């Protein structure tokens, strides 16, 4: 359950010691060690060499640790990056099932070689082009290692592929978001997306925009986001954690529905809302999610306390 909670996933450029040292204090549920666009071409080799020693450093605050590889250097990156402690590989610009299978096969080989139970490491494809969107279903079904994947709504690479400006005053990415989302849900893969939010500035450090993002994600039933700036961590973690009011309502729905079932009934109106089997399932999911978030928060807090006492 702990590894399922990734409300806020923070990119950390692995070649920047200042960012790496501070990463564990940021409060993110997961950290992505980035070998791709955060690392200049001239430093790729050096960056690969840093992964193994960096895992424990960024995990000190209880965050899961992911790695984003370069698609064009997938093999070199994976050989350098797959060590115990890495739980997920972010595959950017995913465009075909074959690319995923290539990564999956190499992961199996490396897991065997390095004492990691086979099948442990997830693959998280990012759809960032028209071709990725078109192939979203075959990508989503290409490997059991895919539990979560991201649609192509609004990323920098998608804008590059389509040669369009970002942050327009209307929803430019409707199709690119909605089609992959359907494909992912059909494939039984959790869909992560970037909803359109009017008035987004494109500035990467705006905490208030982080809150708006969290609200939109929450409303769409999406539990996670990847961010570039630490200022967005807190708003996202808070915004994607169920509020006490929501938890209370869910508990009430559970009680009411269970009482209805006892009486052989299955529907009731409570405070102007319908309580039925669907609302019951929703409530159950919300409570499970709230419990998982609480467990993750306890885990992080313990880890931070320990790390701080080591420092002291």
């Amino acid at each position, binding site marked *: 359950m702990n590894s399922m909670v990734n409300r806020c996933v923070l990119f950390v450029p692995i070649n920047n010691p200042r960012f790496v040292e501070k990463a564990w204090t940021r409060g993110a549920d997961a950290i992505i060690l980035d070998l791709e666009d955060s690392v200049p071409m001239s430093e790729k080799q050096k960056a690969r060499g840093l992964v193994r020693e960096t895992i424990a450093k960024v995990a000190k605050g209880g965050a899961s640790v992911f790695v984003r590889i370069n698609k064009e250097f997938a093999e070199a990156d994976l050989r350098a990056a797959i060590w115990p402690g890495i739980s997920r590989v972010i595959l950017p610009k995913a465009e075909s099932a074959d690319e995923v299978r290539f990564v999956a096969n190499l992961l199996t080989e490396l897991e065997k070689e390095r004492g990691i139970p086979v099948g442990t490491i997830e693959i998280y494809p990012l759809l960032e082009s028209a071709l990725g*969107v078109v192939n979203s279903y075959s990508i989503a079904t290409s490997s059991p290692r895919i539990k979560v994947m991201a649609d192509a709504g609004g990323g920098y690479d998608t804008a590059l592929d389509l040669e369009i400006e970002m942050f327009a005053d209307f929803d430019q990415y409707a199709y690119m978001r909605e089609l992959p989302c359907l494909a992912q849900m059909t494939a039984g893969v959790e869909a992560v997306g970037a909803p359109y939010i009017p008035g987004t500035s494109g500035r990467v450090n705006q905490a208030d925009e982080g809150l708006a993002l969290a609200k939109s994600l929450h409303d769409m039933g999406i539990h996670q986001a990847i961010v570039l700036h630490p200022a967005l961590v807190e708003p996202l973690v808070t915004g994607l954690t169920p509020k006490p009011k929501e938890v209370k309502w869910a508990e009430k729905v559970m009680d009411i529905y269970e009482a209805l079932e006892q009486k052989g009934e299955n529907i009731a109106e409570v405070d102007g809302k319908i309580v039925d089997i669907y609302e019951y399932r929703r409530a159950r999911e919300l409570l499970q999610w709230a419990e998982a978030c609480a467990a993750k928060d306890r885990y992080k807090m313990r880890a931070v306390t320990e790390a701080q006492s080591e420092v002291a």
Partner: protein
Amino acid sequence: MPRFVRRSLLLVDMSAMSIPGQILSAGCDVLILNLETAPRQWRSALNKSEMSSIIATATKSAAEVFIRVQRDTVDMDLEAAVWPGLTGIFLPEVEHAEQIQEVSRHLADLEHRRDIRGGALQIDAEIGTAAGVWNSLDIAQSSPRLAALSVGETSLYRDLQLDIEAHLDKDPLRFVKGQIMVNARAAGIQAQGMSYPLSITLEEADEPRLRQAVRRARDMGFKGAICPHISWVKICNEGFRPSDEEIAYYRKVRELFADGVRRGLASVPFEGKMIDVPVDRRAQAFLEWGELCTRRDAEKTN
């Protein structure tokens, strides 16, 4: 980078042997000579010298020339209209890849018979029905002759039985247009389309509205639009290319990024935004596109 600078594709009704001077001097990137609206008998009677002279007149305006044929009489129209000088064929209501392949075979035969370089003639496929939208990826991948998918808004409205009421902010074809554009892009070709509702109402839109519609089309990924009216041409030519301010901005982006790379950085901040590899490459693509558009415009004034 789009392969072709085709921001404005001006539709001209053909029923006479001449093209009005104001159309020739409109400055459009493409002239689409519309045979579809011409009487069948007139089309079937067109001969080589008449058609060649129309094509020659049209190309003198520095526009590329396409012929829009009628769906039910494609073969007859191709025989009547395909002569040297033509850039390609605009095919309405395409629903299946096979249609494109059939036309492509006919074009190959005409190229052979009429002294046109083999493979030179292009096809623009207009998607105007639900079936066409559904099959648009297949259509986009159907032939190396295929240059673009065009959104046929008016026919889509008829086919989907939508009500023609104009609300700029509620485009009922939002998803459909995204689908056509993404499928074209996935196949490596470009998409042409105009934002709702101006191509439906065919009104003589005021300039600010038209500019906004063009901007929206561009922000969705369309590289040009079919112009039903001469007054759209200039606005499309300007609206589908980066403005002077944007060009200055992209140059700045490239400068800052190059400077960052020299300092060993992979991303640099600029006005609160992040510039990294994809942002820099996008700026480069926009600058190259702007350059191509400038060159294309210069050809028209020469």
